[in-house]
């Protein structure tokens, strides 16, 4: 008698092969930190198009924008953290290349949480009195049903797919995030029909016995459809405590917003050996963690 064995390991190409044009895709991490960049590069190479992207965004959004993949962007900010402004996002946004749903960062989290709870909205005060309401006429206000005043009814941000990068995962989809802030990765995964992880290391489940790890495992494994092992998969963003932001790389990348994006794609996105091309494993490991 054979019993089922759960094994969700797959390749980066397999994960991106599951994506379809027109999908709404949420991306975990924050700005210049812990972005699933190996998946983003694979998406840039793909023929995917007309995507709705939802993110606390950085170069994930910038690269997808310059690759012409974005039909609509749901965001509160786009930043590389140590470099405040994201050049590719700025260029594409100012060129009017995609629609936007620009909301408060807290509204964004409520949108994910509403979707995660199968609610059509969650109420908040954020948004009142601002042009967030002007430019998002679909976002309604509601009367307080129990007292005075009005609330913004932040609509659910329902995702087809969520993509996140973690420090360790097992083949079942359990995962550990080594950096201090897990950001909103679990909410992206819960808001999505399917979620995929890339991980620095595939480990055996007993690796999670350690107390300090168990407190940083926010994502439930039954949300996860696939896991790919990609050492340094967040580069050029950071993945604390293993490596920091590659500021020099991001500066060079930023410069290609004006001219040279095709060259960036050719040299880095299409690189046969990405880690070697950006300077090697020792270089990435030596990148200092950002200080804010």
């Amino acid at each position, binding site marked *: 008698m054979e019993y089922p064995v759960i094994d969700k390991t797959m390749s980066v190409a397999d994960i991106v092969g599951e994506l379809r044009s027109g999908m709404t895709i949420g991306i975990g991490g*924050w700005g210049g930190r812990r972005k699933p960049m190996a998946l983003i590069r694979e998406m840039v190479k793909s023929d995917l198009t007309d995507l709705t992207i939802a993110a*606390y965004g950085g170069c994930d959004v910038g690269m997808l924008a310059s690759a012409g993949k974005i039909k609509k962007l749901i*965001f*509160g*900010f*786009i*930043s590389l953290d140590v470099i*405040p*402004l994201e050049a590719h*996002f*700025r260029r594409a*946004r*100012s*060129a*009017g290349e995609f629609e936007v749903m*620009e*909301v*408060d*960062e*807290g*509204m964004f*989290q409520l949108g994910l949480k509403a979707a995660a709870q199968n609610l059509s909205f969650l109420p*908040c*005060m*954020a*948004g*009142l*009195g*601002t*042009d*967030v309401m*002007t*430019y998002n006429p679909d976002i309604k*206000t509601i009367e307080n049903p129990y007292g005075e*005043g*009005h609330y913004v009814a932040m609509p659910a941000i329902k995702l087809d797919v969520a993509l996140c990068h973690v420090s360790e995962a097992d083949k079942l989809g359990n995962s550990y995030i080594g950096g*201090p*802030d*897990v*950001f*909103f990765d679990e909410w992206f995964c819960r808001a999505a029909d399917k979620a995929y992880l890339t991980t620095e290391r595939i480990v055996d489940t007993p690796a999670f016995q350690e107390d300090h790890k168990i407190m940083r495992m926010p994502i439930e494994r039954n949300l996860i459809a696939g896991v790919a092992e990609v050492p340094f998969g967040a580069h050029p963003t950071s993945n604390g405590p293993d490596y920091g932001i590659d500021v020099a790389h991001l500066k060079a990348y930023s410069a290609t917003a004006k001219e040279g994006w095709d060259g960036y794609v050719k040299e880095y996105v299409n690189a046969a050996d990405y880690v070697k091309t950006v300077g090697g494993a020792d270089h990435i490991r030596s990148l200092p963690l*950002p*200080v*804010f």
Partner: protein
Amino acid sequence: MSDYSLAELCICAGADIFRDENPEVFATLIGLVPRLGGSLAKRTFLPGLMMSDGEYYFVSEPVHVGKRNGYMPKREGRIGYERVFDLIPKGNRHAFVGPVQVDRFGQMNLSCIGDYNAPKVTMLGVRGLPGNTVNNRTSMFFGAHTSRAFVAGEVDMVSGAGYNPDRYPGGVYPPGLDHRRIVTNLCVLDFEGPNHAIRVRSLHPGVTFDEVQDNTGFDLVRPDDIPETPAPTSEQLNIIAELDPHNLRANIFKDNPSGRRAA
């Protein structure tokens, strides 16, 4: 009296924002002047002020700005982004931030300039300004007080809410809306004019009301007597030097001018 720079004057004016704050206010300090101002308040008259290391931990003493050189932040708790967003509606928070534009209502812009669908200038996005402004006390720093920053009419994209009744259902302000002060290279402004109109609270040494008004795109409230922005004390200057050991404050203003402008 010791000499002091304009940056140090602004940092002390930034600390003064917290003078009548809740003893355990959670301060979010975005930018060098807000960060050093809030840190100075914590090191002096408001030791209970809650602030972060800039990333994830509440700290029991302000972390100096710039390279850490082996210093370990004195952690006293966790304050990740999700916790920040969950706490903002609770209200005991003061956000001291640096928007790009502000208007007569105290509405702020951090999103974009020009046509919204294809902006002339794209900036960060609204970030947390919508939530901050209707839930928390808000103060601002502007390094260049000009009519391009202090705009006539309304800011290009209202990212942070203000005292504009036309923008609220029934014209009723949200109970959490509470704008406090604006520190600039010329003066300190507050919202204590009629109907929360923006008022000149103090002028930096050598600056006149007319100069401030000439660089502001809307009418400012002019009290009969406008005091001079208080000069930093030597104790404050010493603490600022500890909080900013690499002298990053020398780069806030071009050529790092004195706080006492030559007449």
